[in-house]
């Protein structure tokens, strides 16, 4: 079973329509209480550099957040970009995985499958870039 941290990664990396389709059966069937309306926000990126290991702020990223309640369980999502429908659907999925509703298992299976697809795409991207690995040779010629 996928670790809880990875749910948000799969949802974030998937397209908006895919996430909305995933949550739609739940949203259509059960009452979803909106605790925090989908809204844009900023996330400041905190980094650590290497010279003095000091932390500094690199800049902000635009993100969207939403919080819902489903069957007494809170669901939360925060995602880069401004897709309010996607973040709302992701919050519902987050709440769903904490419930015992029958829709939970098929959704988790879909997330697991999507995770594998994303990993495959990532591996292909890594392999494409790996073709540009270079081995420079020094010559016995000096200028």
């Amino acid at each position, binding site marked *: 079973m996928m670790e809880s941290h990875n749910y948000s990664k799969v949802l974030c990396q998937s397209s908006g329509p895919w996430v909305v389709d995933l949550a739609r059966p739940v949203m259509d069937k059960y009452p979803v209480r909106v605790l925090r309306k989908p809204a844009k926000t900023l996330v400041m990126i905190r*980094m650590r550099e290497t010279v003095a290991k000091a932390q500094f702020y690199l800049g902000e990223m635009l993100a969207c957040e939403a919080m819902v309640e489903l069957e007494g369980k809170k669901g939360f999502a925060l995602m880069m970009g401004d897709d309010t429908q996607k973040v709302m659907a992701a919050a519902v999925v987050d709440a769903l995985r904490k419930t015992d509703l029958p829709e939970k298992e098929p959704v988790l299976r879909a997330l697991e499958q999507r995770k594998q697809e994303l990993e495959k795409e990532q591996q292909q991207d890594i392999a494409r870039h790996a073709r540009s690995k270079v081995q420079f040779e020094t010559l016995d010629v000096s200028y």
Partner: protein
Amino acid sequence: MGYVAVTGGQEAIDASIELLRDYRSRGDVPVDLTALRDRMGLLIDRIMSEAGLYAPDYAALALKQCEGSPEEAVFLLRAYRSTLQRNYTSCTVDGSQMHLRRRISSAFKDIPGGQQLGATYDYVHRLLDFSLEQENEEEVQSWKEQFRAETEETQALSDQAPRVLDLLRQEGLLEQVEEDTSEPCDITMEKLPLPAPRSAILQTLTRADTGFVSGLAYSDIRGFGMSHPTIGELRYGWLDIEVDSPVEEGERIYVGAVDITEVEGLMGSRPGSSGIGVGYGCVMGRNDTKAIAMAVLDHALTLKDTGPTSDMEFVLLHGDCLEMNGFISHLKLPHYVTFQSKLDGLRNQKRSMGHDEEK
């Protein structure tokens, strides 16, 4: 200096704004935002870095709105950013966690994990490609499909690697710098303190205008400073950004991935030091030059030198895209009263000199 307000000209200003719209809609081919975002990636990266806001879609929108002017686009993004609430700060990320797509070293031929050129203009001929004038999108997509199909399926490749300079650190060959454990200063929330703490220096440089940072670093290397840099490592890729979950204690939430270019520059030894000094550069997006230049300036600011690049106030207070362009730009606006006052002063001076001569 005092300022005097002016009024009037509303109709002319309205007409000017209409003209802007007319200029922006020249020709009959609209600018597609998705194409702008996806195929002008380096420009989008530069705008986001200088605005200090990672928002590729909005950077494209800003560029469309202002006819591709980087300074106006940065202004638009900064202005928009100021309307939003910042509810989160990410968990601390480190360049060593980067998912690498490019990684080079000009100091070492062989590095653990290997050098990877990635997508770079370093080795292309700078010749105009006239075939792009007749570029056919179907052919582009067909080429892309073929290019991607050529990639061999291999078993679980890693896209992370240790830093090159860690080897020198382990050997004790790098300059010992005292660890800075202070809370970072945020120059978007408070006035830049001088002398600036390290966090404020890095935040200021990473947001600075690419041209300003590059020009200053060039001047430093050319002889107005003390740097003789060698790139220990330049890495480009993306970092996973996470925040602590507000609903599940101890859990983290994945927010997205941010493209980053990070540089560790070997700057030579300073007098009395037993190790090689390192300069650090890190910028949003794909921008080798800015990251290298930032590393040069980061190190220059630690030197007790009389050159301009070691003058903290000079370097940190003049490179912000919005501030520098805003100040230069304001010179175009009415200064009638101040200039008339200068003329009055000069006329009075001439009059009194003539009066003296008559005497």
